């Protein structure tokens, strides 16, 4: 496994810059949550993906707007990489009516239907069959969509993962399973949970393509996902990508696990050296594809967007008590 990203000359400058921008959008968005969380105005649990950005960005760079993404409790990055606006996301975290889920979901339940972000389940593995169902609908309707299902190494232990993968392989559905293996389920290491640490090998049992890749290398993720997405769109069935990575923050909340004695500090620092953004950025600078000024422009523009989203979220109204019983059952007009 490479310790830093390798710039691939087959990729256009435009795509490389888009990958960097996408990762920065996720990183800066989540770092702002870390900064603001102690204010206790965001009154919901937050599951941060700092350190894992290359996976969401590398995968979603291969998608069209119409394609679907199903995600989990650690879903901010997936939604952002798929193009979700900051405003409704941030407003949702603040529990406001203008949030993407009208204040009913919180950080664990975000959605952006126009961009294909189809909702996130906070039951480990729970979103996997729904993603396969969306792919079944695409197959029946022949609408040309591909569905991406993001899940963690913990979800790979759930029976529903195998049940779902079998069905997707059986019906050759247009779906890509992306396992973000950050080596821990809450505080439990993978070695304490898996008889073999080879999640990607599961695909072979179902006659499908599986690949274990460096999840901190955006370019590696990009190419792996490109192959899987193309296979899916061509009607050749599902693939399983296991992307190895590391979560810098705790399972939930803005602190790092070593601050609570839950993991070795050195382990985190080793993975910080393999930051998906810093190494990639350095190579873009070294090769002259980007300069410091251009990067400053990108980060300034993201900062402005985040500032705007925070202001929007803080200024927005809370839902009213009359909203409590709305949406229990779907009605086209959103009423009770």
């Amino acid at each position, binding site marked *: 496994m490479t310790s830093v990203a390798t710039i691939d000359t087959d990729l256009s400058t435009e795509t490389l810059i888009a990958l960097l921008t996408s990762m920065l959008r996720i990183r800066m968005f989540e770092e702002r949550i870390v900064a603001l969380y102690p204010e206790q105005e965001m009154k919901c649990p937050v599951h941060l993906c700092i350190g894992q950005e290359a996976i969401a960005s590398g995968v979603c760079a291969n998608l069209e707007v119409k394609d*679907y993404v*199903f995600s989990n409790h650690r879903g901010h990055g997936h939604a952002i990489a798929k193009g979700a606006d900051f405003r409704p996301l941030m407003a949702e975290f603040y529990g406001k009516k203008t*949030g*993407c*889920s*009208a*204040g*009913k*979901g919180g950080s664990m*339940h975000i*959605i952006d*239907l126009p961009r294909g972000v*189809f*909702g996130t*389940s906070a*039951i480990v593995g*729970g979103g*996997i*069959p*729904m*993603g*396969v*169902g*969306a*792919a*079944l*609908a*695409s197959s*029946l*309707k022949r609408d040309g969509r591909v569905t991406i299902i993001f899940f963690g190494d913990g979800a790979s232990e759930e*029976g*529903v993962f195998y*049940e*779902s993968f*079998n*069905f997707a392989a*059986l019906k050759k559905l247009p779906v890509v399973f992306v396992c973000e293996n950050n080596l821990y389920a809450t505080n439990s290491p993978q070695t304490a949970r898996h008889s073999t640490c080879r999640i990607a090998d599961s695909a072979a049992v179902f006659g499908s393509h599986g690949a274990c890749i460096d999840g901190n290398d955006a370019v590696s993720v990009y190419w792996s996902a490109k192959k899987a997405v193309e296979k899916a769109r061509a009607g050749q069935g599902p693939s399983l990508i296991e992307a190895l990575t590391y979560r810098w923050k705790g399972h939930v909340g803005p602190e790092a696990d070593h601050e609570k004695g839950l993991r070795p500090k050195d382990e985190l620092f080793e993975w910080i050296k393999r930051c998906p953004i810093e190494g990639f950025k350095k190579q873009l600078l070294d090769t002259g594809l980007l300069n410091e000024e251009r990067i400053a422009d990108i980060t300034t523009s993201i900062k402005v967007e985040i500032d705007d989203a925070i202001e929007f979220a803080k200024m927005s109204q809370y839902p009213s008590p009359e909203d409590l019983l*709305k*949406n*229990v*059952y*779907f*009605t*086209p007009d*959103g009423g009770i």
Partner: protein
Amino acid sequence: MPWTKIYGNKADFEKAGGAGAGLRGLTYREALHEAASQLLESDQNVFVMGEGVDDGGGVFGSTLNLHKRFGSDRVMDTPLAENALTGIAIGAAASGMRPILVHMRIDFMPLTMDQIINHAAKWSYMFGGAVSVPLTIRSIIGRGWGSAAQHSQSLQSLFANIPGLKVVMPSTPYDAKGLLRASVYDGNPVMFIEHRWLYEHMGHVPIEPYTVPIGKSITRRNGKDVTIAAVSQMVFEAMQAAELLAADGIDCEVIDLRTIRPLDSDAVIESVTKTGALIVADTGWASCGIGAELAARLVERAHGALKAPLKRINFADCPTPASPALEKAYYPDRHTIAAAVRETFELKRSNG
């Protein structure tokens, strides 16, 4: 209306006049089959999936040979993976399809609870009403012939506890056809619960497609002395009990609840306000069940209406046994209901 009548079999149907005068008789299984067939024919978004929907049994005949007509993409046999298949149906529904997922036994549905309770029931609310999940899940309650503890449960109350789900239990061929169509077009996850002993029941069923409203009960028999609120196969037992009791001069009102959630308690309360007595006949267990819910609502809203204690008719409070001797003690029937009504009627009379 002719289709509100209940006939336990073809012979009774014929004896009562049967078909004719523009009326047609269908069994419960045929009504389900016709409903599915018409839905598949008219709407490309409808598809049927489940273990064995295309086999020689065709889910007790209710899906028989539909795959030959509509193709195995739209009438789809599935792996034995109940939880994933439920999630797959939910995902397909959320993406614009109208799946009908079939479980041969309701006993298999505990395998699907994560997807039904945590996902199907929540997907509209959790995302502020952004997503509709038009999913119909058919399941079948068994009874008798030593089916024992894992092939004869009646789990409707588990689902009725959950906001976001609807639960229907048709008792007649007419309602089976109309409620299936209503469920498919409701826009929400509907648990459509059938009873195996109803499959040979016969009734008048219009040939054209129609819907029966979800959430509305129907009064099967008008009476002044005692109200019997019943569901599914117990509606038939209640009607039989009412006939037995009529011979004794006890006049029962029988309400077929048809839907468990939302529960049409208004109709029951109105009836009890008239009769002063209520028996609730359910196909399942008593604790936290339909009878408990109806009793609570009655006490909340019309606590003075009862002139005798309410009675609940349910399974015995244990898993289903296999031996016929124990089954006899386990399952209530028309005689159980009749005995309860007589007792209630006497108490009501002695209370003045």
